[in-house]
């Protein structure tokens, strides 16, 4: 049996070297499809025998993307385009971009001209997603993705295969939820926790689930954490920057739960399993909630964060705001208000993918840790 360190090392090596994983798939003769966040229908890609590969950008300097985007567009979208123009995705069969925020809408339009050899496939989601007419529209969006994938890769689609894929992803969801709880209980460090989530973007679902199972087994045997530091819930789009995670660690701060788009938010909802798998997938999307890019007039997300803090007995909330992410900037005010009325300390840290200096974050977190 592998040791806990070995297992975490595996996750870490994938999370920090996605390019290797990408090249390996190509060498193995797989067709890889880039999946820009969020709620990209990975199940469909998987069911068609293609490898869904997360495209959340990378921590790099922007140069080429500046020809297309003004500076006030978020660094996720900018760096996805930058990677595309630099040829880092060479060999990718297509890129699926959902249109859930204004910047994502623009990414697809620019991609067509900036990266001509990798086809752009739009996934248009409804915001009024819960009513029947919304579910119908999601299904129509999926059908379009299927047709485009067929054209780009020659792969075919069979509903029976989608049923299997849905099961595989539901299983991963369950494992992720179990791991998440265990990692909080056993005092897993923020970087290791982040690697578990991040690696999932670049691995085949079965393989990742296998590793999760190994992790669960080993974690269960560990003593519960006697954590003398502080416990927080994080919220945001991305919270995987190594500089930032180190600051958490230096200040003895453990992440016990998150409402982060790239982390647990992806794994909250399972698809039903009926005889109409495409509709099942649309129902899954309809049931998604508590997210800055999904219409929610009651702002239930803010309440969810407060509930998480209570449930995990956390000491506070750290909002990790991706610079220029307007959906999250609007939500931040509501999260702030909800925390204030529940008497929960909270801190705001702005990040972007070009960040090299973490001095400001360091200062904020030091002060925050002292306050908790």
């Amino acid at each position, binding site marked *: 049996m592998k040791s806990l360190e070995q297992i975490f090392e595996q996750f870490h090596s994938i999370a920090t070297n996605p390019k290797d994983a990408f090249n390996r798939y190509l060498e193995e003769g797989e067709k890889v499809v880039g999946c820009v966040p969020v709620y990209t229908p990975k199940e469909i890609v998987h069911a068609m025998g293609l490898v869904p590969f997360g495209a959340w950008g990378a921590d790099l300097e922007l140069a080429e993307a500046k020809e297309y985007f003004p500076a006030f567009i978020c660094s996720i979208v900018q760096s996805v385009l930058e990677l595309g123009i630099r040829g880092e995705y060479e060999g990718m069969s297509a890129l699926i971009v959902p249109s859930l925020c204004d910047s994502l809408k623009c990414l697809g339009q620019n991609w067509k001209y900036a990266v001509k050899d990798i086809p752009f496939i*739009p996934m248009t989601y409804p915001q009024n997603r819960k009513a029947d*007419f919304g579910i119908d529209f999601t299904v129509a969006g999926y059908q379009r993705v299927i047709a485009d994938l067929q054209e780009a890769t020659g792969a075919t689609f069979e509903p029976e295969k989608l049923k299997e894929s849905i099961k595989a992803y539901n299983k991963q969801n369950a494992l992720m939820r179990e791991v998440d709880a265990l990692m909080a209980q056993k005092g897993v460090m923020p970087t290791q926790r982040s690697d578990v989530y991040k690696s999932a973007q670049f691995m085949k679902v079965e393989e990742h689930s296998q590793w999760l199972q190994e992790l669960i087994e080993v974690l269960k045997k560990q003593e519960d954490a006697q954590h003398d530091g502080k416990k927080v819930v994080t919220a945001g789009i991305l919270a995987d920057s190594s500089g930032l995670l180190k600051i958490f660690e230096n200040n003895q701060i453990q992440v016990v739960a998150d409402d982060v788009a790239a982390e647990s938010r992806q794994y909250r909802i399972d698809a039903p399993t009926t005889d109409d798998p495409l509709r099942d997938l649309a129902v899954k999307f309809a049931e998604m909630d508590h997210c800055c890019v999904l219409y929610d007039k009651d702002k239930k997300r803010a309440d969810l964060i407060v509930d998480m803090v209570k449930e995990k007995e956390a000491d506070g909330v750290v909002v990790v705001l991706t610079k220029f992410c307007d959906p999250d900037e609007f939500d931040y005010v509501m999260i702030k208000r909800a925390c204030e009325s529940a008497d929960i300390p909270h801190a705001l840290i702005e990040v972007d993918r070009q960040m090299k200096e973490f001095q400001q974050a360091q200062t904020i977190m030091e002060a925050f840790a002292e306050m908790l």
Partner: protein
Amino acid sequence: MAKEKKARRPVDPNSAKYKLGKIVEDHYRELQEAKDRGEKIGWCASNFPQEIFQTLGLKVGYPENQAAAIAARGAGEKLCVHAEDSGYSNDICAYARVNLAYMDLKDVPEQNMPQPDFLLCCNNICNCMIKWYENISKELDIPLILIDIPFNPDYEVSDEQVAYVKAQFLAAIKQLEEITGKKWDDEKFKEVMEISNRTSRAWLEATAYTKYHPSPLNGFDLLNHMAVAVCARGTVEAAEAFETLLEEYKQSVQDGTSTFRGEEKYRIMFEGIACWPHLRATATGLKSRGINMVATIYADAFGFIYDDFDGLIRAYCKVPNSINLEKARDMRIDIAKRTDTEGLLVHTNRSCKLWSGFMYEMSRQIGEACDIPVTSFDGDQADPRNFSEAQYETRVEGLTEIMEMRKEAK
């Protein structure tokens, strides 16, 4: 300001200018009166299908128009800062910041508007709108109706999209009936559709007059008239005012006059929302060089022409920010060619991610297709801090020089 007022001649009550100004004034006054009578009033996104509440006989105010008015009268920064103090990032659309601040302050002498009892949101111009209206709904604890019109990545509007939007349209009517107690009337709906078409036709015809040499109007006039196209499209008064405007332009062409002062040396397309806090600086920068704006997407943007209910839905699915690059580009190329545009000046609007997010590529393509020079400047529609007059001057000067060189070469 005061000095300038004194010098102004009274406006002829039969002129389009008077009629259009009155519509805007009446709009705010009637909204306040309805509120005072105890009627439920709404706040509404500029591209929400107005046929719905016109038919129901509901009064709504337009936060975007109000924010533009507040910014043009110099209070944009004050309100933006107020929103920032309550936690809103200064990267957020300044219309949203101004409005969220107004919701809080409730009294801003530059332009008041009664507080809403319900909200009508439509995201065909941006998803930012959804977030903004969600926050108002939560803060004021009032109902929000969203008609979701997704950004269309294709050239044509699909039947699936029409079906989706139509279903929401009907659901919105039901919700509004419940909220306000008003009843839907199909006959009234038809009438409203007819008036809207009449208004739109007059608007389109009037704005098309920029094709004449010289253009009978200073294109910046349109930025002011837009408020009426937004807030009163379904009213007879608006139709009549635009018809008057049309007559005036016709007459001007015959007489060879124009509201553009001075010689029209160059004709350009201005891309983007106006820089309301710096309207004078931006307008003067053009006028002083003999540059007239003869082309803007706004001219076509508010012309909602349709034959039936399906057509109406499709029209709302084709507003400028909801269409793909190719369609948006072709619409502009068409306008530029129709008006003999000689240059393109792009306002890279810090507030509007969608408007600016693929504009670099699109304006390159327009420049190529029309063989005209393209220049951009950084600005903002309502936050005065995001504009530099020096940069603007340099860019406009650069554009002028190229246009001049090209003229000489001809």
